[in-house]
């Protein structure tokens, strides 16, 4: 009898996870069926991702809440010594070059590849340090799984090489207002003319 109980428990756990997955999926279907309405989410949109994220203010959001803005996204981690400060500088440079009348339309998003360390408190401090406390700077961390999936979408590869350090590809991605990947800038401190132009063209 005791064994039977365990089996039942195991079975129900199993069922719950399946059920979970199907719930997520039905959410996905809903978003497809919304196609005819105003909130149209296209096939290539990152707003199809069901993942949940925590902002630097500790708020839970889904990516689709960012719909309607041009997104400039980069994956970093706050304890990073080498490349990340330069990626942050690259983001700032992009922001500077976007003309005043378009600034409102653009959201700059940093996604953590080290979500265990990059808590809202940590990100808040990081934002302060880098003078990025304005609303246009958004810092997100999610579960390890969602982070891996999001990196897969951006084609950003990363690997933890020590408890303190990651090796990662340096890619800044620009999404149009519908959440479709429109442009990627690869490398550090590269000529950002094309990226700036892409942002300006998309921010209509």
């Amino acid at each position, binding site marked *: 009898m005791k064994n039977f109980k365990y089996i039942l428990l195991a079975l129900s756990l199993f*069922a719950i996870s399946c059920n979970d997955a199907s719930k997520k999926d039905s959410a996905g279907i809903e978003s497809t069926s919304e196609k005819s309405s105003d909130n149209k989410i296209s096939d290539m949109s990152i707003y199809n991702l069901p993942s949940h994220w925590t902002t630097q203010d500790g708020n839970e959001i889904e990516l689709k809440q960012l719909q309607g803005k041009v997104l400039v996204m980069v994956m970093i981690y706050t304890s990073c010594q080498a490349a990340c400060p330069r990626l942050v500088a690259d983001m700032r440079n992009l922001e500077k070059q976007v003309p005043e009348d378009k600034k409102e339309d653009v959201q700059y998003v940093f996604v953590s590849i080290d979500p265990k360390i990059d808590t809202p408190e940590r990100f808040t401090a990081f934002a302060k340090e880098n003078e990025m406390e304005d609303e246009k700077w958004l810092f997100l961390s999610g579960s390890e799984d969602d982070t891996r999936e999001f990196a897969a979408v951006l084609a950003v590869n990363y690997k933890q090489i020590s408890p303190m350090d990651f090796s990662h590809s340096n890619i800044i991605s620009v999404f149009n207002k519908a959440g479709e990947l429109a442009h990627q800038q690869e490398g550090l401190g590269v000529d950002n003319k094309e990226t700036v132009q892409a942002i300006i063209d998309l921010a209509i």
Partner: protein
Amino acid sequence: MKLFNTALFLVCTLLFCKVAAQNSEMATVKGGDYLPLYGAADKMVNVESFMIDVYPVTNADFLKFVKEYPQWKKSNVKSLFADESYLTKWKTDESFSGLPNAPVTNVSWFAAKKYCECLGKRLPKMDEWEFAAMANENVPDARKVEAYNQYILNWYETPKTFNKPIGSTFKNYWGVYDLHGLVWEWTQDFNTVLISGESRKDVDKDSNLFCGSAAIGASDLMNYAAFMRYAFRGSMKARYSSQNLGFRCAKDIEN
């Protein structure tokens, strides 16, 4: 009453998943330390004990999955999650080509990941996969055994092995079939392979592999076989699919 309905729903879902899990047989791989080809500065990596499917997921398995989750049918799948070669050889949404018990291929990472999640499993981590795949029939780490390496390299040269049924290669030390010999397989963290950008060290290693003037010994062959896998992973994106790339699922060991 509501509780009862929920319970009923759970049971139904469960039954459905059960049906979908045709080849759900899993083997336990006892963990340990190993030195991967691409590691953090030549450090040993610890792999915890885990469970892995004995066989790759088949065409028939995957058909059941898309019937249950129609959003993964080839005409429905979102292009964010799969490119145009997704299930390309399936004539319709519900008819695969080839043997029902041949490994399913032309599936994207997203689809493979979802499939495993529905069964309460996950994709194997790259280190887990590599760890399990070091074994031949007799020993857990056969990477220095010439015949083992030769087997893998011979397979690389054999065309269309993806058409063969599962179980047609050897059963390894852990009781797992077909890790080498039929198809390559997705891993959860395939996108940890850095071929460009910051991973200059890795790139150097590659050139050593190619330019080494030393005679080709067993360890070179071993590295070459593994290098091919890493290079392939590094070239893939999560929405890509390929006719020689399938997958199987893994699971943590529950206490």
